């Protein structure tokens, strides 16, 4: 080789000092006392290289960057030659931060895909390529002792979520989950989440329908509404409780809430409302009495109460 750059490390911490040296061999060119090694950072010539002729006839230059503040830079070792500069070697230098611990780790059990989807916050940019891995294991009582390991879940590039497939899950057993972040400068892990997958089930909202007036059934009383609802089909096997909220469409009144409703009703009469008034109704459900998450509110159902 004509010349070569030697770096202490290709990746350093942003702002850290770094000293780099370049050695040029005699077989490259005749190295007289006037030979001058010059450094370039990307395209900028850099002052301050300390040059010395080594006993074995090679020429060495060393340069120090007290606070290296480029997340990525190309360092070139050049030699004055004729009336120009000859580039003899290049090295890519990167700088950034070790990964901060990921945080806000949360998981939801998706009943359609049957997978446990976890997401997290990666924390500030490290300027370096950082890989996240969702790690977990099944454990009995106290979440500490690992029983069966679960294969790592590797998110797609740049994504901060990962889904553990059903075949790796025991839906009713304790599980410890955490995120590991890793780049060239270090590794960090998020706080551990201890959960039972089934308790993380997030239901889709129920569906509300107006009850069509029918000859056999007396019309609703003034200030009353009739409706029916059904929970989301994939959750039929889950015992749930639901909440109904309603408010007049016009005006600023807040929502009124009717709690602890069954997960399915073929006919429900809501009374105590203003007569001949247009109302907006929404419902949400949650797994109950076993733990679960509230679904989102259902799409709005608009009904008008019977006249006085």
């Amino acid at each position, binding site marked *: 080789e004509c010349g070569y750059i030697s770096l202490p490390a290709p990746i350093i911490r942003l702002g850290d000092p770094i000293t780099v040296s370049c050695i040029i061999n005699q077989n490259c060119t005749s190295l007289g006392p006037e030979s001058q090694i010059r450094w370039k950072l990307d395209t900028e010539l850099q002052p301050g290289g300390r040059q010395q002729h080594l006993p074995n006839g090679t020429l060495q230059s060393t340069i120090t960057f007290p606070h290296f503040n480029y997340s990525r830079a190309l360092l070139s070792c050049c030699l004055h030659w004729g009336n120009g500069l000859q580039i003899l070697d290049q090295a890519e230098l990167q700088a950034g931060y070790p990964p901060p611990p990921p945080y806000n780790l949360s998981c939801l059990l998706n009943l359609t895909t049957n997978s446990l989807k976890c997401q997290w916050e990666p924390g500030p940019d490290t300027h370096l390529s950082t890989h996240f891995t969702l790690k977990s294991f099944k454990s009995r009582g106290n979440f500490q002792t690992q029983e069966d390991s679960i294969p790592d879940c590797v998110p797609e590039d740049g994504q901060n979520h990962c889904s553990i497939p059903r075949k790796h899950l025991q*839906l*009713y*057993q304790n599980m410890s989950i955490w995120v590991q972040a890793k780049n060239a400068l270090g590794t960090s892990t998020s706080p551990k989440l201890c959960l039972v997958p*089934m308790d993380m089930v997030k239901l889709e909202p129920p569906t509300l329908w107006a009850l069509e007036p029918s000859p056999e059934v007396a019309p609703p009383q003034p200030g009353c509404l009739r409706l029916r609802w059904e929970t989301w089909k994939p959750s*039929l*096997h889950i*015992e749930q409780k639901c909440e109904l909220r309603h408010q007049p469409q016009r005006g600023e009144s807040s929502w009124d809430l009717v709690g602890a409703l069954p997960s399915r009703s073929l006919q429900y009469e809501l009374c105590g409302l203003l007569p001949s008034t247009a109302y907006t109704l929404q419902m949400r459900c949650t797994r109950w*009495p*076993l733990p679960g998450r509230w679904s989102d509110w259902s799409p709005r159902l608009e009904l008008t109460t019977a006249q006085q």
Partner: protein
Amino acid sequence: PLSPASSLPQSFLLKCLEQVRKIQADGAELQERLCATHKLCHPQELVLLGHSLGLPQASLSSCSSQALQLTGCLNQLHGGLVLYQGLLQALAGISPELAPALDILQLDVTDLATNIWLQMEDLRMAPASLPTQGTVPTFTSAFQRRAGGVLVVSQLQSFLELAYRVLRYLAEP
């Protein structure tokens, strides 16, 4: 008879009930697809084949309400689920259309078996070692796997019907 659920945590029983309902739904899904895709809709049409396959059956004799014996009942529940886990596993390769439904059913059966076993261990009711799956028939053709699927799922549904009644009885406050 033993007053129901004297030693079984309510949350355990509610979870088991939920799991049984899920497995019943999974089983119904598989039965629907076997009928739609392969015109195998009635187990009664496959009795002769069932005899020749020699499908083992699971008993819940210790769970009858007249003579409920809790440890024996839980053991039989767990043993039956392990048996069906093995039978469902033997159906692997049933057909590309049915494979996903069979996988979910198998996973859910395995989950319930594990829950019961872990609860028995916690209550020092579990036998010294896990029961083995016993001899499972080998299905030698695609037709036998599908016909076997109809028979196995039909038997599993009857087993679950009984199990559900027992669990409900045990969960009564």
